[in-house]
């Protein structure tokens, strides 16, 4: 091993001095090993299926403390690397150094820091590999289908079975159910159940075309809205409809169940839909709910005990497969369902095993009058049976999330920029030395304080904190940034070397932020102009009405700035060389 290290070092030293000096080869080799370790760690950390019972297993890296382990290893690696790297400095000794060579050094720093700080990805890929290897798509899909079909019988909450959930048969699928207290027209037909009244309305629609730049009215008073690609449809209550003839019962019944237990298309948050979203308080008439209610309706209409029992049996098999805690059997469960011939809800199943806390009589503390009727009823009909269906949902959610989540989205920018700025810092230290770097850090702190205090003073004098203050801060920072950038460009030989060194360091680290500031200022102006001119309809994003630079660039902003940053660092290597060659004093 020692011989291998020596031979490799000699090979690199003679042929690739920058790679030898930056130790990038060895750091990447060690990083690779640690990445493999984290990958294996991720692979085994979820080998127990019960881990999937909690939500967001994909965040396990942060939740189980691995993140601290990763941070400690990253810090150790970087410190050890810096100790080795700082042993030789060709630039300080005035060995020949080209701009390309300096940039290559910077790039090596970037790669080293990136490789030493991104163990998170290896861990997550370990987790992903485990999920891909152990949860085949078809099998999971079949389990989800079973769970969705049998979810009607979970009977955890009465609210899932009340009439406001119904969406089949016609005309129930097109009606809106109002159940807010005070919104019921008591002169029109309505349904009363325990504490709640339900009134069904037909709907009218107003459509807002998003292409219309100017609109002359505000669409208030709608009960919900649907967002299409180029339009928003607003729904308004029209006339009351008496739905009693169409209902199996006005009490909670399995017939009313229209919820989909697990959405494969939207595994994490069913309401966070990309193309359609609802600002709805009780409207469940999307196609999925209608289809679900219809299949439930048809199943119960057939009323075939074998079919229902088979469905329950399949679900319990799925639950057992994922080690979901429950105390149900097909027979006991079927008995609860079939207590009422019209499938009204007679009993409820717990979402978790009954424990001592469930024995507490809360009415003793709060008084019987404090409990709502539905709470009282819940207490009366809740059984000791339980199935932790939420955990089953979590299992599906985790599997789909882990399989579909792009772990690089978002976080990659964090790691890229951390690497970029740390690499800039190391480059500055190598080029200008510790003393100048310390002065640069102190100088940056003073500048930050100066800008903050001046902005606060301006806001105080203006007695406001509106856009004028924001523009002042932005332009004031831009002016100071411009002065800082000008010094190394035009006055590098006119001022003292230590002074220009400080400005050079701040420029190297801050030049990308300066570009970002320009983009922000452009965006602020565009945004302000847009706000002045246009009516922004609720639910719409600004860039749909006018061109706003940062909204247009979106997540590409980071990548574009990063590329610009690399180009600027390359350009600055010329200045670094120029500064280094200057005499002191």
């Amino acid at each position: 091993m020692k011989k291998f290290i020596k031979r490799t070092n000699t090979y690199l030293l003679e042929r690739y001095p920058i790679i030898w000096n930056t130790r990038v080869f060895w750091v990447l080799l060690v990083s690779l090993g640690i990445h493999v370790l984290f990958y294996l760690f991720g692979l085994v950390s979820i080998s127990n299926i019960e881990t999937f019972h909690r939500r967001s297993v994909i965040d396990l890296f942060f939740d189980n403390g691995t993140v601290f382990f990763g941070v400690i290893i990253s810090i150790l690696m970087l410190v050890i690397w810096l100790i080795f790297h700082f042993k030789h400095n060709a630039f300080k000794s005035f060995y020949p150094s080209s701009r390309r060579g300096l940039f290559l050094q910077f790039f090596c720093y970037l790669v080293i820091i990136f490789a030493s700080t991104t163990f998170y990805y290896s861990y997550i890929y370990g987790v992903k590999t485990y999920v891909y290897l152990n949860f085949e798509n078809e099998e999971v899909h079949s389990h989800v289908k079973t769970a969705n079909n049998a979810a009607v019988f979970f009977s955890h909450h009465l609210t899932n079975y009340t009439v406001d959930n119904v969406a089949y048969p016609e005309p129930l699928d097109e009606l809106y159910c109002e159940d807010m207290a005070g919104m019921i027209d008591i002169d029109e037909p309505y349904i009363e159940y325990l504490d709640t009244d339900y009134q069904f309305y037909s709907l009218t629609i107003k459509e807002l075309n998003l292409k219309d730049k100017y609109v002359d009215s505000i669409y208030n008073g709608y009960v919900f809205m649907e967002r299409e690609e180029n339009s928003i449809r607003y729904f308004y209550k029209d006339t009351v409809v008496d739905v009693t003839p169409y209902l199996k019962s006005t009490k909670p019944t399995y017939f009313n169940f229209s919820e989909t237990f697990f959405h494969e298309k939207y595994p994490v948050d069913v309401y966070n839909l990309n193309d359609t979203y609802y600002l709805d308080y009780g409207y469940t008439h999307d196609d999925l709910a209608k289809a679900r209610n219809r299949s439930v309706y048809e199943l119960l209409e057939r009323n075939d005990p074998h079919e229902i029992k088979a469905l329950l049996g399949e679900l319990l098999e799925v639950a057992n497969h994922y080690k979901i805690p429950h105390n149900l059997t097909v027979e006991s469960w079927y008995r609860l369902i079939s207590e009422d011939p019209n499938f009204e809800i007679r009993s409820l199943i717990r979402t978790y095993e009954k424990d001592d806390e469930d024995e507490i009589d809360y009415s003793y503390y709060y008084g019987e009058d404090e409990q709502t009727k539905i709470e009282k009823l819940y207490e009366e009909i809740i059984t000791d049976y339980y199935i932790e269906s939420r955990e089953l949902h979590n299992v599906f959610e985790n599997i789909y999330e882990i399989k579909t989540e792009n772990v690089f989205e978002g976080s990659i920018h964090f790691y890229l920029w951390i690497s970029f700025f740390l690499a800039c810092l190391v480059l500055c230290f190598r080029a200008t030395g510790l003393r100048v770097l310390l002065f640069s850090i102190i100088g940056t702190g003073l500048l930050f304080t100066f800008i903050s205090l001046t902005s606060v003073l301006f806001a105080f004098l203006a007695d406001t904190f509106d856009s004028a203050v924001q523009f002042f801060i932005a332009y004031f920072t831009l002016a100071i940034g411009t002065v800082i950038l000008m010094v190394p460009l035009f006055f590098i030989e006119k001022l003292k070397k230590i002074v220009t060194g400080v400005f050079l360091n701040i420029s190297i680290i801050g030049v990308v932020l300066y570009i970002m500031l320009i983009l922000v200022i452009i965006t602020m102006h565009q945004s302000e102009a847009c706000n002045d001119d246009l009516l922004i309809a609720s639910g719409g994003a600004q860039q749909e009405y006018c061109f706003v630079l940062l909204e247009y660039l979106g997540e590409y902003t980071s990548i574009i700035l990063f590329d610009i940053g690399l180009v600027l660092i390359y350009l600055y290597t010329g200045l670094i060389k120029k500064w280094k060659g200057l005499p002191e004093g």
Partner: protein
Amino acid sequence: MSKASARIKEVHTFFDNKDTVLGFRKLMDCAIDTQDLEIYRQVISLTDWKENNPHDEAGLIERSRHLLGKMAAVSITAYHNTNPIVRANHIVKSYGKNRFTLGPISVDIKKGQVYGLVGENGNGKTTLLRVLAKELKYNSGTLDFSFDTETNSNYDLRTRLIYIPQRTLRWYGSLKDNLKYVLSSYRIPPEENEIRVLMMIARFGLWNYRHLKWDELSSGYKMRFELARTMLRQPELLLLDEPLANLDILSQQVILEDLKSICNSINNPIALILSSQQLYEVEKVSDKVIYLENGKYRDNEDSPEQLAKTGKQLIIEIDCNCERGRLIELFSEIKLEKLIFNGGVYIAFFNETTPYHRVLSKLGDYQVDVTYTRNITHSSRRFFVS
């Protein structure tokens, strides 16, 4: 006879007189002048043989002569440019109002010449070196560099001149790796890198120390390492600040001889400026001495005013166990004009008609117990007399 042939002949003479240590060093200088990698290889293997057979002097001489024969066959193009590579004109460097000011100083530096920079502490030796090395800005005057290799930036210029401060920077890793790093930074191909590095290691007597680290080397070997590193970089101008400090007398002599011979390379001469307090040693190797007094350049020649006043005096430094009165008495016969005792040694000023051998003769006649005496008439040592 060409310069190269003359040098090879000189090496043969050293071996004839059994001066093998000096002869072998000079042999290596001749080898370096050839810039022939095959010759380098043979010198390296001979060095290795020498280290393994330290007592076989005859074998070494025989092998060395054989190698010298091969070197003689290699044609060497001599360097001829005698124009100054550095021209400083009335340079002034001030550290502020009422603070130390160096200059104005004008000096021309040529390749192949050794310039000794002497002066008491605080008289601006380091400042002048740093100004010439482009490490310090100067306030007025001009400083022009005209190196053989064209440079297009200050940084490139500074890669062609090397300034070694009194306290050299610590380095890490093995001595050999550090030297290799120099050459790889200069993009020397790998196959040449090893040979050139070993050649320089051999030349500076670092063969047995090549795997050692900085803290395992003595001051003398650290300075040898610095010189080896410097020579690998093939600078055109070398500025050394007190290179002899912390070195024993033998190391001082070896380093100075090495510097002199490196500076006088046939095809790759270097302009060398070194500052030191070791006056005699520096004067011995210097082609020109720059004496700084209160930041001003003082010519080694006596001023016309001084000559008009005292004539060209004979100045002798004497360290002896003899009372002042007795010395005055015995020297009065040979026209002693002034005798100064600084607590350690006497400085005696004689009339210009008195020859040095008469002084020695008097000391012998009167059986004075002389520890040491030196004629400093032409040495800058005479300026250090209080």
